[in-house]
């Protein structure tokens, strides 16, 4: 079935630096969402993309349906950015709104 491979599984950054998370898809996806898990385990929306790029503050996301990937870039990382980030892709099948989740990236920001 449709798969989403998210990498890296864990990432450690120093404050002020940046990096990227990536999700690869085994098939063409219609859209992607990026989330951050909150302290209770629920999901905070970061981005929804059907194509192209979006930016919000120090976060920027890109989605390329044809090349089957999406990225989440974090710049000037702050301590409060620590947490677990997930991508979820929406497949192009009949199941409206089926999000297929990646395994998550645990991000740790160090002083």
């Amino acid at each position, binding site marked *: 079935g449709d798969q989403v491979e998210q990498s890296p599984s864990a990432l450690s950054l120093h404050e002020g630096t940046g990096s990227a998370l990536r999700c690869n898809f085994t098939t063409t996806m219609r859209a992607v969402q990026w989330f951050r898990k909150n302290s209770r385990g629920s999901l905070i929306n970061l981005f929804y993309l059907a194509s192209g790029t979006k930016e919000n503050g120090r976060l920027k996301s890109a989605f390329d349906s044809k090349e089957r990937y999406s990225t989440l870039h974090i710049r000037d990382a702050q301590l409060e950015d620590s947490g677990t980030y997930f991508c979820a892709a929406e497949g192009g099948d009949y199941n*409206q*709104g089926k999000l297929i*989740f990646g395994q998550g990236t645990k991000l740790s920001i160090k002083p």
Partner: protein
Amino acid sequence: AQTIHQWPVAEIKAVGSPLSLGCTIKGKSSPNLYWYWQATGGTLQQLFYSITVGQVESVVQLNLSASRPKDDQFILSTEKLLLSHSGFYLCAWSLGDTQYFGPGTRLLVL
């Protein structure tokens, strides 16, 4: 005001006992509704979705059922819990694109 509510916050239940988890959406007309589940250490996966009252589609077979008795309510239930039902249950809504998730219910089956 919070749009999506889930209850209970957490449950500890015995194997073989019944379960009912609830989700309500406030302030949105005819949303698409979804149930997701994450086993401990596992990946979040969609269980059910509903695009209208009384209509629910199953995505994964886990000996669970779902119902949408009202436009703003989505219920997940089973008559007999299994150990494998333990995990974190999330309800979500959308009006076509972005899905928004509720606070979740943590379930432990013993």
